[in-house]
C-alpha cells in the first residue's frame, strides 16, 4: 500500500499546477506519511536563501532556523519579520480599508462591510510588498497572533525527527 506520492506530484502541488483529477485523488484517497518532509524539501529548493525551513508557516512565509536555538519568520523574498513565536503582523506594512471609497475598489455598492462596523487590514511584506493577509476586524481590535506552532512537540513526538538547524541543513 503506497503511503507516499511521487516527488513530481508534490512539486505540482506546491506549484499549484495539479490537474483537477490528480487533486481530487489526493483529497479523497490516502494521506501520505512523508508529506511534510517532501513538501519541506521542495520548498527549500524553491527559496533563494539557505536558512533551513523548520515549517512552512503561511503562503510566502516560513519559520526558519537561524541557529540551533533561534527560529524566525521569514518571507520567501528574504525579508525576516520576527522571532517564530512573535506576531509577524506587528512587523508588517499595514493598510486599512475603512471608508466606503476604499471598500468600493473591491466590492460593489452595498456589498461591503460598513466602515463603522468593520475594517479590512491588509498586511504587506516590507520586502516584496506581497499581500500576506487580510483581516476583517471590528475597529479597535488588537492584532491577532494567528498561529503558534508547537515545534518541539511536532518534531520530537509526532514525526520523531531532529529539528533542522543551519548545521544540519
Amino acid at each position, binding site marked *: 500500500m503506497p503511503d507516499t506520492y511521487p516527488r513530481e506530484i508534490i512539486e505540482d502541488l506546491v506549484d499549484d499546477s495539479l490537474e483537477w483529477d490528480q487533486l481530487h485523488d489526493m*483529497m479523497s484517497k490516502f494521506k501520505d506519511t512523508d508529506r511534510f518532509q517532501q513538501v519541506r524539501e521542495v520548498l527549500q529548493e524553491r527559496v533563494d536563501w539557505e536558512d533551513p525551513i523548520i515549517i512552512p508557516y503561511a503562503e510566502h512565509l516560513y519559520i526558519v532556523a537561524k541557529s540551533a536555538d533561534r527560529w524566525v519568520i521569514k518571507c520567501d523574498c528574504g525579508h525576516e519579520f520576527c522571532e517564530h513565536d512573535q506576531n509577524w503582523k506587528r512587523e508588517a506594512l499595514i493598510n486599512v480599508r475603512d471608508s466606503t471609497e476604499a471598500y468600493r475598489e473591491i466590492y460593489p455598492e452595498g456589498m461591503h462591510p460598513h466602515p463603522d462596523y468593520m475594517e479590512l487590514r491588509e498586511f504587506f511584506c516590507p520586502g516584496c510588498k506581497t499581500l500576506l493577509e487580510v483581516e476583517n476586524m471590528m475597529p479597535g481590535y488588537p492584532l491577532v497572533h494567528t498561529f503558534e506552532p508547537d515545534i518541539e512537540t511536532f518534531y520530537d513526538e509526532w514525526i520523531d525527527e531532529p529539528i533542522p538547524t543551519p548545521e544540519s541543513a
Partner: protein
Amino acid sequence: MSSEHDASETQSVGEQAAEDEDVTYPRMRREQELVEEKLEDLGEGIGWNGKTLKTQMEGVEERTDSTDHYDGQEELELKSENPIEYEQMFSQLRGDLVTARETSKEVAATPIVEQEGELCYGLFTPEGDSIAVSTGIIVHIHTMSEAIKYMINHDFEESPGIEPGDVFVNNDTHVGNVHPCDIATLIPIFHEGELVAWAGGVTHVIDTGAIGPGSMNVSQASRFGDGAHYCRKIGEDFELYNSWEKDYVDKTRTPEFLKLDERTRMTGCLMIRDAVKELIDEYGVDEFKQLSRESVEDGRRGFRNRIKRTMLPGTYRGVSFVDALYEGQENLTREYANENHIMHAPSELHVREDGTFQVSFEGANKWGWHPYNCTPAAIQGGIWVMLTQTVIPNENVNDGAYYACDFHLPEGSWANTQNTETAHAYAWHYLVSAWAPLWQHLSRGYYARGFWEEINAGNANTSNWLQGGGIDQFDKLHAVNSFEAACEGVGARYVEDGEPHAAAIWNPEGDMGDAEVWERTEPLPFLGRAVKPNTGGPGRRAGGAGFESLRTVSDVTRWLLYEMGNGYMTSDSGLFGGYPAASGYILNAQNTDLKQRFENGEEYPQHDLDPESGAFEAQIDGDITRTPKGISTPKEFEDHDLYLNYLRGGSGLGDPLERDPEEVLSDIHDGYVLPRHAEDAYGVVVEQVSEDAKHNSAVDGEFEIDEAATRDRREEMMDERAEEAVPASEWYEEQRERIQAERDLIDDVKKTYVSSMRMSEQFTDFFRNFWDLSEDFEFNLSDEAEKSLEYRFGSGFKRKWDNYTRSHESWHGVGREDEPVVPYTWTDRSLKDLSGPSASFDERTRATDDD
C-alpha cells in the same frame, strides 16, 4: 411532486411499516413482556445486566475518564481480533443508515427535505453516543446524542418510561438542538429485555409556530416567540399517540408538511431498528454491543490519528464577527429588543500533543435579545459536523470525534446562554459565523504540514434566508423558507478557486433546488436566477461566487416576507492575502407596476447583477428598498412585489495580484467579476471588444486583456502599496491613541467590547495589554447601550439541565475570574511561557497516547 401526490406515497410506505409491525414483528411485543418482567418482577433497569440506564451511563463516563479511552476500551478486541467482521458490521450499519435516509426521504413533502436532503439518521449507544451516521445534515447526530443523554439524566427511564415500541421527540435547543425547526424522532431498540441502541432521525421542518412564519423567524427576542418546543414520549408500540397527533398540528403553520416529515422520520427509524435486529441475528448481541463500544473508541482514535498525521500541534487563534441589526426594526416582540448586535467570536484552538482538540471561545460576548443565540449542543454539534466534513470526511464518523474534542464556551455568552429564556431560531447565524476561524486554523495546520490540497479559506455566510408566509395560492395558511440558501459560494482552496453556488457547509448535499420545485410550494415565482458578480472574495484563488434569485409574489393574501443575513459585516475572512466575501444587502420593491409591465409586454427586472448600474430601478416603478443591512423583520408583501434573494459567495485566498490575468478574464465572462473590479481588485485591465459586449454574457471574447496595461497597473499597485501602507508600529500608536480617546468608535462597537470585557477577565487583560491601556480602562457607553448590558447581565441563568454528567461539566467550566480550565494564551504569554507544551492541555486528558 405535489404534496397530495406525496401524501399517498407516504401512506403506502408509512402504513406498510405500521402494519408489518403487528403482523411480522411479534418481537416488539416479546420485548415489551421481557422489559415488563425486568422492571416489575425483578426490579431491574433496562440497561445491560439489569442496570438502569443512568447507572450504565455513569459507568461509561467513569471508565472513559479513568482510562482516557471511551468506555475503557483500551484494546479494540473485536477490531483487532476480527477486523474483517468489524468492518463488515460497521459498513453494513452505515449502509443501512444511508438506505434508511434515501428511502424515507421519498416520504417527505417539502423540497427542504426531499430536494435538499435536510434529514439525517444516527444509531446511538444506549447512553446516546453515536455509533454510525447516515449522510445528510449530520450536525444533528451530536444534538440527538445530547437529547438522549438529557432523557437519561432526567430520569425518563423512571417516567414516562423507555420501553420497546416507544417513540420520543425532541426539538428543544437547550436539551440538544441547534434550533427548534429541526425535529428529532428517537426510538429505543431493545434486545432480550435490554436497550441495545437508539435510532434517531432529524428533519428540518418548514414551520414550528414561531411568532413569525417560516422555520427560522427573526423577530422574536426570547424563547417565548421561538416556536413550540418538545422533549417527550409521543407514542407507544410504534404508534403515535392520538393526543400527539392532535397536538403539534396547531403549533405549526404547515401541519400537512409536518405530518409527512414525521412519517419520514418514523419510517427511517423503523428501518434502522430492523437493520440492528438483523445484525444482531447474524452476529449475536455481544458482538453488536462490542462493536458499538469499539466503534466510538475507534472513531476517537481515528480523529486523533488523522490530526497527528495532517496537522501541527500548537495554538491557532482567530476572531470573527457578524452583525444583527435591530435598531428601528418593526414588530419586535419587546420594546428593549430594538438595538443592534455584533457577535464577537474569538476562537482559540489548541491542538494538543495527543492529537486532541481544545476549542475555546473565551472572550465571546453576552447573549442578546435575538434568535441567534447558541447552546453548547448547537456549537458542539455544529463544530463536530464541520470537522466531519473536513478532518474526517469518511464513513468512520461518530461521536468518537466528539470525545477527542473539548469545548470551552463561556457560560452566559451567546455561545452558551444557559438561560432558557434566550431565542435560538436561527442560531446558525452566529454559529456558522463563529466557526469561520476554525476553517483557517485547520488550513494553517494543513499548510504547515504540507497537505495543501485540504486548504480552504472558509465558507460563505449562509444567507440570505428567504422566509415568510401567509395565505398562499391555495387559500391556505402556509409558511415558506427557501432552502436556496443551502447553496452558496465556497471559500477558495489553495489549489483551486472556490466552487461557485455550491453546497453550504452544513449540508454537503445542498444545492439551489429547481426553481419549479420551489414554485410548487412557494407562491413566489422566479423572475430570474443568475450567478452574482463580485460576491466571492478576490484572491490568487478567488472565493466561489454566490448567486441571486429575483422573486415576485403571486396570488397571496396577508403575506409576509423577511430577510436574514449579514449586512454591515462580513463573517468569513480571506486567507493568506485573499479578501473576504462580499457582505449582504436587501433589495425589495413594493407597490410595483410589474403587473402592467407583464400586461404590456414591457421590460421588467430579472436581476440585480450590478447594484450600482441603476438597471433594476430603471425597469420597475414602485417603492424600492435598497439597504446594506442584512436582516428585516416580517413585512407585508403583495402580489407583484419583488424580493431579491442574494446567496453569498466564499472568501478568497492569496494575493489577488498573483492571480493569472487570464483567469480574471474568465471571471468576467463567467459573470463572477464585474469588469471595473478586474482592474481595481486584481490590477487586470480589460477592454470591451464592442459597445454591445456585456459582462456576464457567458460568452467568451466580449472582453480582452490589455496585457501591457495590466503589467503597468500591477506594478503601479505594488508601488501604491509601498507608499500607502505604513509600518504596523506606526499604525499601532495611532490606533492606541484612537482607543484611548474613543475616537470614531460607534456605540455598537464599544458595547461589543464592553460586553466581552464584562464576560471575561482574560479578554479584558488581552485588550488592555495589547493596547497598553491603563488597568482600569473602560469604554464609555451611551445610556441605551449601558441599559442593554445591564438588562442582559442582570438576567442571570435559567438552566435546562438539573444535573450535568461529567461530559457536561465543561458547560460551566469557563469564564471564571480565576484561571479557567482552558489556558488563555492571547495575552503576551506564549506557549513558551507555559510550563511546557503539554501545559496547554488539561491534566485530565494528557495521558492518552496509546495509539
